[in-house]
């Protein structure tokens, strides 16, 4: 051990406190980096696990028409080590389904014959029963068990099986290539799709999605050419839909060992491989092993495997993690740098002494570097342990909630420590330490021996300072130009200003650490704000009760018609448009009443239909109330209405551009897409009574009266929040029907017309559905001038500040509440209202009770309702609330931890730099005090300097933190549109306050140290 090493170790030992503080800084830095990286690897591991659970471990899917060729290539590739495992899925025809079955299972029963470890590779796991093991056995999707008559394990099913054949749509000619065919529900990998030509009569394999010219804009429809019939024994069901079972034309049923003549169409090989690190490498392997075959990559899995994806779409989380990692690294560099810089600066004298006895600059540099390495050698391993330990504790506490949030509850969020992560954390910390000592070491090695020995701190003045000093030599102007500082802080302020102008360091270190403190605190603040918003918005408005049943009838069936298919539609919701889509039915019934269709007849038919539906729902409510454990809360019907609202009643929200759906028409009143809630009479009467009105006033069928809700959710241009939609009482007009040259208007949209019939402004645009036979249908706009419109006046008697809970709280536009009894006479233009019944359920059982309710409703509608059910579903509000609360808790804990850690770093840094900055100058202070600087003047001087540091630190700090906030916003807004960038002012204030407090405490401590230092002692610090 040479002399310098001995010296280094001795000096580390001699300065225990300083050494420990430095080591603590290194530990903290290493721990934080480890924690960030470990969180990342753990999350990645969890998402990977979850992805394999959901979609399987396959990395690429290779397709081919010739199974033998494909299998031969796969075997060869396995032998060559190019791929590891292989599983196959072969098209085994398409089963024909009845119309009723199609509602539940899709267009066809796709039959797929598997071989290989399909369970692991493709995540095809039976939820009940087992996988098929021999020919003639089949595994079906779970809805076969639950829907309709139900199939059980052990049953046999017989299905007509055939080929899908392309048929030109009426009036179309020509052909198209596979590439033009809409994707089959999977995703397109890196390779080009095979360009198979499709013409009239082409047999379609499973890679081609359902052809419907009306829907996909192509020229082909398709039909099933049945070639035979097959009988299978059901051996199992699966209930999660892995990628391999998800296709646009229907649910897949799995078989195995089918006879070769049944296996026609496309064959797919699912492969895994080892030792690939990019998607390009995966592609290349596939191209080598399976030349010229079409393949798709399992991008979802590859991303979580750490396999680089080209132009990868980073998830919000990874963006946030990246921003945080950068912030933490900067914080750690600053912490360690300061610790070393100060420790070296404090020992300038020592280095002078060493130099005076012959230590070379190189030796001095190495002494400092050695010191750094010793500190790192102790600090880094400790930091790794602390980081992993911290993660383990945090994950143990938050893991289950985190896993739930990421949709991987079965997998769980477990600690996953990657060696590379530890290496990176250790490497980064050591690099940080070395970087942090380089500058101080360089400085130490350049210490002027004599100056160091004399403790001469002449280097404190900068070159420019000397020039300034020279200019200030005019005796007549001595101590002039005090400025504001001089006036406020007197002589002390003036000295501070001179120090600031002429000093070499100018308290730069302090300013930098102050700026950093602001950045750190604001980063934490922004994160909390954005994540908080995220959870809040994700929470959304919540309905009354723990569970809700939502239902809607479809208008395809004329009242009194056959309604046997009703209940089967459960869980197969086509969306809200279903109501409008079927409007033709009611209106057709209106037409059937007479030869010439009148507006009155349409309105009358709609009212009658509405009343009938309301009566059915009323009975359904009575039935549902008897469900065990379901505590009835209330029920309502609601639907969208087109309203003309006088300007005097409209809130600001409609006056702002694009905030809500609606706007001012040319005549000054507003065209608004609103909604009407028909509330059961008892609940309605309570609302009315609460508003101080008489319920009896709302019962007159000739004069519909309503309560209005004053506020609604909308985007005010910055955030999603409650806006004013209705401010005054008055009478609005509901558009109840429209007739255009004998054609019934399906509905009214609101649009801005720059040159409409009535001038510039918003207006109602009547439209009709094109009866195309297709599911969704398309609309054709009509000229408002040609349309005869019926309206119903509704008097809004009171505007409620708060929407009643039973109404489902706030809507997204004008909301009117009317009593259910009004449903007997007025539809207000609503064709098929949405039925919403709310119930309370015993804690934790909301899901089960919800299922029971839906089943009861399904049975009732099936047996009793004269309408076809378009939509029947259950909302587990209690479950949603619980999971939202979990999310909020996780986010809050995470933000709190992060804020506390960053605040600690920031404060430690400020404290370190400020106190040391003062302590290093204590000799100078002693000189000033010995010539008569009073305590008051001393304080004024220091306070003035601090103000200057703060001012210099705050401006760049705030600018930098705005940048970081913005980056975080970019990261978060990726998953949440409508979140506008906002400065977290509360946290800005907090950051200022905390920084100011830290400076205050540091200064107080520093001054205390300087004062406690006897002037005599301080002056004596002449030598080492």
């Amino acid at each position, binding site marked *: 051990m040479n002399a310098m090493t001995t010296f280094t170790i001795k000096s580390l030992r001699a300065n225990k406190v300083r050494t420990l503080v430095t080591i603590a800084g290194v530990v903290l830095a290493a721990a934080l980096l480890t924690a960030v990286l470990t969180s990342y690897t753990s999350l990645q591991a969890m998402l990977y696990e979850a992805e394999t659970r959901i979609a399987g471990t396959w990395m690429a899917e290779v397709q081919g028409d010739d199974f033998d060729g494909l299998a031969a290539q796969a075997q060869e590739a396995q032998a060559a080590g190019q791929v590891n495992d292989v599983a196959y899925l072969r098209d085994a025809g398409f089963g024909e389904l009845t119309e009723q079955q199609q509602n539940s299972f899709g267009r066809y029963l796709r039959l797929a014959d598997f071989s290989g470890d399909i369970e692991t590779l493709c995540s095809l796991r039976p939820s009940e029963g087992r996988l098929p093991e021999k020919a003639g056995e089949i595994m079906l999707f779970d809805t076969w068990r639950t829907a309709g008559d139900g199939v059980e394990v052990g049953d046999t099913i017989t299905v007509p099986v055939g080929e899908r054949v392309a048929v030109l749509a009426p009036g179309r000619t020509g052909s198209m290539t596979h590439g033009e065919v809409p994707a089959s529900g999977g995703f397109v990998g890196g390779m080009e799709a095979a360009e198979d030509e499709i013409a009239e009569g082409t047999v379609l394999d499973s890679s081609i999605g359902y052809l419907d010219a009306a829907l996909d804009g192509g020229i082909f429809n398709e039909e099933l050419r049945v070639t035979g019939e097959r009988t299978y024994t059901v051996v199992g069901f699966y209930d999660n839909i892995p990628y391999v079972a998800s296709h646009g034309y229907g649910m897949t049923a799995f078989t195995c060992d089918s006879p070769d003549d049944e296996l026609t169409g496309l064959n797919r090989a699912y492969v895994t491989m080892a030792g690939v690190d990019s998607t390009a490498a995966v592609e290349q392997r596939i191209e080598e092993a399976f030349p010229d075959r079409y393949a798709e990559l399992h991008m979802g899995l590859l991303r979580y495997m750490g396999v680089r994806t080209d132009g990868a779409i980073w998830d919000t989380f990874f963006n946030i993690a990246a921003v945080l990692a950068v912030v933490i690294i900067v914080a750690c560099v600053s912490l360690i740098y300061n610790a070393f810089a100060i420790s070296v600066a404090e020992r300038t004298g020592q280095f002078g002494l060493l130099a005076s006895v012959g230590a070379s600059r190189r030796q001095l540099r190495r002494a400092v570097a050695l010191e750094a390495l010793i500190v790192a050698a102790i600090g880094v391993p400790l930091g790794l342990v602390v980081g992993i330990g911290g993660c383990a504790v945090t994950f143990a506490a938050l893991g289950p909630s985190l896993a739930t949030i990421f949709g991987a509850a079965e997998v769980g969020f477990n600690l996953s420590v990657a060696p590379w992560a530890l290496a990176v954390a250790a490497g980064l910390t050591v690099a940080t330490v070395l970087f942090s000592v380089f500058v101080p070491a360089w400085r130490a090695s350049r210490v002027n021996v004599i100056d160091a020995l004399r403790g001469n701190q002449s280097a*404190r003045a900068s070159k420019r300072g000397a020039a300034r*000093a020279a200019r200030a030599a005019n*005796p007549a102007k001595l101590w002039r130009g005090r400025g504001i500082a001089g006036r406020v802080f007197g002589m002390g302020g003036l000295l501070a200003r001179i120090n600031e102008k002429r000093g070499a360091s100018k308290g730069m270190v302090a300013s930098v650490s102050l700026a950093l403190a602001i950045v750190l605190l604001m980063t934490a603040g922004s994160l909390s704000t954005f994540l908080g918003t995220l959870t809040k918005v994700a929470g959304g408005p919540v309905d009354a009760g723990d569970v809700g049943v939502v239902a809607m009838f479809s208008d395809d069936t004329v009242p009194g018609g056959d309604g046997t298919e009703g209940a089967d539609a459960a869980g197969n919701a086509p969306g809200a448009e279903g109501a409008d889509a079927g409007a033709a039915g009611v209106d057709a019934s209106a037409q059937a009443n007479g030869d010439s269709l009148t507006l009155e007849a349409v309105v009358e038919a709609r009212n009658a239909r509405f009343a009938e539906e309301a009566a059915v729902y009323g009975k359904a409510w009575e039935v549902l109330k008897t469900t065990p454990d379901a505590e009835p809360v209330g029920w309502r019907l609601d639907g969208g209405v087109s309203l003309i609202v006088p300007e005097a009643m409209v809130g600001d929200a409609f006056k702002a551009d694009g905030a809500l759906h609606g706007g001012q028409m040319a005549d000054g009143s507003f065209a608004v897409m609103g909604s009407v809630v028909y509330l059961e009479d008892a609940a309605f009467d309570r609302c009315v009574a609460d508003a101080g009105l008489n319920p009896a006033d709302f019962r007159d069928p000739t004069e519909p009266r309503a309560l209005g809700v004053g506020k609604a959710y909308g985007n005010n241009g910055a955030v999603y929040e409650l806006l004013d939609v209705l401010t005054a009482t008055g009478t609005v007009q509901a558009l109840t029907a429209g007739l255009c040259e004998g054609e019934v208007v399906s509905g009214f949209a609101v649009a801005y017309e720059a040159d409409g019939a009535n001038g510039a402004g918003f207006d109602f645009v009547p439209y009709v559905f094109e009866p195309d036979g297709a599911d969704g249908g398309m609309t054709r706009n009509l000229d408002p001038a040609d349309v005869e419109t019926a309206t119903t006046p509704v008097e809004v008697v009171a505007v409620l500040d708060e929407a009643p809970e039973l109404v489902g709280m706030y809507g997204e536009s004008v909301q009117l509440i009317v009593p259910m009894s009004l449903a007997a006479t007025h539809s207000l233009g609503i064709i098929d209202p949405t039925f919403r019944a709310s119930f309370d359920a015993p804690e934790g059982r909301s899901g089960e009770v919800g299922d029971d309710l839906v089943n009861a409703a399904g049975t009732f509608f099936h047996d009793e309702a004269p309408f076809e059910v378009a939509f029947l579903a259950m909302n587990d509000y209690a479950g949603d609330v619980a999971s939202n609360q979990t999310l909020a808790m996780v986010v809050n804990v995470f933000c709190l931890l992060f804020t506390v850690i960053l605040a600690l770093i920031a404060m430690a840094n400020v404290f370190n730099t400020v106190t040391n900055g003062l302590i290093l100058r204590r000799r*100078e202070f002693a000189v*000033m005090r010995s010539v008569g600087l009073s305590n008051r*003047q001393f304080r004024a001087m220091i306070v003035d300097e601090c103000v200057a540091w703060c001012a210099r630190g705050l401006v760049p700090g705030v600018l930098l933190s705005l940048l970081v906030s913005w980056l975080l916003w970019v990261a978060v807004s990726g998953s949440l549109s409508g979140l506008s960038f906002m400065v977290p002012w509360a946290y800005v204030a907090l950051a200022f306050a905390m920084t100011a407090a830290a400076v205050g405490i540091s200064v107080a401590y520093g001054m205390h140290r300087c004062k406690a230092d006897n002037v005599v002692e301080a002056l004596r610090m002449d030598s080492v």
Partner: protein
Amino acid sequence: MDILTVSHLTKIYGEGEAATRALDDVSFSVTEGEFVAIVGSSGSGKSTLLHLIGGVDRPTSGHVLLNGADVYARSDEELAVFRRREVGLVYQFYNLVPVLNVVENMTLPVALDGRTVNQDRLGGLLDRLGLRGREGHLPRQLSGGQQQRVAIGRALMNAPAVVLADEPTGNLDTANSREIMQLLRDSNRDFGQTMVVITHDEEIALAADRIIAVEDGRIVRDERIRR
């Protein structure tokens, strides 16, 4: 007339067994215009004595009367004012404020007192100290001897009751030492400035009117030099 009276001054550093009696019941007086040299070996307590007279430290017991007023009857704030006006301190290592130039360092006590600088006195001192042309220099731009002359200028600027110098030549070569001693001597003679100088340089001591020898915190010798 006695301008400075030190009576029964005792200073103990530390406590218990570690207690060091730096000054032990020291008493003496200095008359106005006197040039006193305090000599003694290292650790004899002479610097402690000087700091106690200068009001930068507080005695364990005893009194210091300057211009008839008890120095340590003052509060800290008053003591600061006292140091500005009544005392001029000169140290071995100059102790100039690094960011202040020559004239600012010299006039710092006046400025701290909030008074206007007497331009005649400043000009006179600059001439006498040979610092003309260096008014705007920072301490690090000056030689050791020049820095010490600035420190002396600072001490004299206020025409204090007493100038206290602690080894003012301890850090200088022989030529500079002589020059500094001459300056102190001249100031004493020309301005009638009372001086108390600590030194262990016999030659310098001999330039004084009176030599007080301190050993182990006590005065062992107090003699006037007759010229």
